[in-house]
């Protein structure tokens, strides 16, 4: 099973050894790869690209991508230290994807699934107009068909470079969610490291079933903003998946090696098992 995309991403492992972000152990890269990019020492789940997620979750050769032809424009003509439109082009080239979410459908253990996957490599998985539009279309498709929906998030939140348009994507996606809520479609949210800001505060937090990966950072505000605001060090494990489980915000924390099985099981119990590709 090809776990890693052929394109080189910023986070691609280009040496033999890799340092774990969590336990700081130096680990043999091949060992991490064999382990679905999970640290064999501390069970830290490394971030995956959208392509890697498709390889893990979706049955081989069943994935059909939708709306990859939707691309960002630069509505504010935004410039900080560089131009937004240049950053877009550069990131597209680097990641091989058109924007921060890949959407489509396929099967998971032969069960039909609409899927949207955020790619943190694309400007921190930020949500601008393109992400909002693709997620909205996916929600509408699932609502209309009464078919299963899975959104895998990894996002720092709204894309500042699109200003108010980004903020309103939270309203847009949740408006679609209000339609989904009135349908029979099952919606599963899989929160991976990190899921914060405008994505956490919209569709990611209102699923029928919410799953998180071990130790994933999940919250509204980023930890640095919080510690700057309150002037205190944050408690250990704060805003991690296990913390959210304890506080009643999510349904389960699931290891990557059983995630496919778990999602398929949830679909069997709650979802549409009739729909075919």
């Amino acid at each position, binding site marked *: 099973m090809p776990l890693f995309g052929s394109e080189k991403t910023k986070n691609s492992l280009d040496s033999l050894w890799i340092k774990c972000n969590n336990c700081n152990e130096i680990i043999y890269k091949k060992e991490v790869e064999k382990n679905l990019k999970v640290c064999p020492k501390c069970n830290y789940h490394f971030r995956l690209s959208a392509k890697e997620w498709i390889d893990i979750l979706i049955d081989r050769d069943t994935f059909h991508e939708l709306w990859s032809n939707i*691309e960002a424009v630069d509505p504010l003509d935004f410039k900080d230290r560089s131009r937004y439109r240049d950053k877009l082009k550069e990131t597209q080239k680097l990641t091989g994807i058109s924007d921060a979410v890949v959407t489509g459908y396929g099967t998971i253990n032969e069960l039909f699934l609409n899927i949207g996957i955020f790619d943190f490599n694309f400007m921190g998985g930020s949500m601008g107009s393109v992400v909002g539009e693709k997620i909205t279309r996916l929600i509408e498709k699932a609502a209309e068909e009464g078919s299963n929906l899975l959104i895998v998030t990894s996002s720092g939140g709204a894309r500042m470079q699109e200003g108010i348009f980004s903020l309103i994507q*939270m*309203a847009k996606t949740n408006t679609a969610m209000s339609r989904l*809520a009135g349908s029979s479609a099952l919606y599963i949210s899989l929160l991976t490291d990190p899921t914060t800001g405008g994505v956490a*505060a919209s569709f990611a937090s*209102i699923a029928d079933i919410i799953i998180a990966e071990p130790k994933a950072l999940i919250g509204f505000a980023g930890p640095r903003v919080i510690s700057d605001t309150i002037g205190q060090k944050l408690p250990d494990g704060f805003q991690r998946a296990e913390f959210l489980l304890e506080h009643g915000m999510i349904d389960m924390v699931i290891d990557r090696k059983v995630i496919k099985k778990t999602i398929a099981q949830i679909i069997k119990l709650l979802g549409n098992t009739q729909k075919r590709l």
Partner: protein
Amino acid sequence: MIHQPLDFEKPICELEKKIEEFKQLSASEGIDLSDEISRLEKKVRKLQEETFSNLNAWKIVQISRHPERPYTYDYLYLMFDEFIEIHGDRRFKDDTAIVAGVGMLDGNRVVLIGEQKGRGSKERAARNFGMPGPEGYRKAMRAMDIAQKFNMPVVTLIDTPGAYPGIGAEERGQAEAISASILKLAGLRVPTIGCIIGEGNSGGALAIGLVDRMFILEYAVYSVISPEGCASILWKDQSKAPQAAEALKLTAADLKKAGIIDEVLKEPPGGAHNDFKSMAQTIKNALIGSIGALRSVSIDELVKDRYSKYRGIGQFRETGG
């Protein structure tokens, strides 16, 4: 008269003080200074006009946060004939950064939900500087339920630096509360009208900002992030906030152009803080007009229109492929 002027308001403030002195002098000494006074009044108006016709985004941000700017409570007292405030989220506490209740607005029963910053250091701290936690948004949702049950339009007044980034807020599901509030507004089967009266920052503003009609005051702002936050992330330097304010296109005029806002409400000369009463009257008229217009549409149509409105927001390119 303004007591805590912004830097660019100071020359105006000085003149106003002088006028006040002359008036007092004239009254106490019985001297006729009316020519001098009217000359100064003309000068003030001209200076005010000049200053306020050339405001850059950063100056507008300053006005939107002006410590003397009217807040939700001020408008509430000036606009409503009667008002009953509700308290608490029935789960954890009463978050007073959000004010909610039922009132009578020119013969219309209305549910009001507004963010409240608080005036003076003590009240500001008590209201957490207008930064609601999850309890605030859950109280807002209670108010929305009341509106739907008793078939009353919802009016939201937006004025927040953002939702509160704190430990307790995260523990109790800040993200979920904001999302649930947005979701509820999306499906609410009564007319909803919003007005940004000061600063409307990020999810903290949007949580009560998905509405059928959105107004903004002339010198209010609405943004995905505060200019300071944006500057510190994208410029890695908080002192670049004025540049960020410009780049974010967060002023009323920019937002109207972008189609995010239905109407910009003109502020009195020198800004809303110079004349609470006339500002309140302007907002009141706008609200009453919208209630009438939205009431004339069937609820099914209204919810459908709301769907199309938000469905259509966003700018992208769809190529042939």
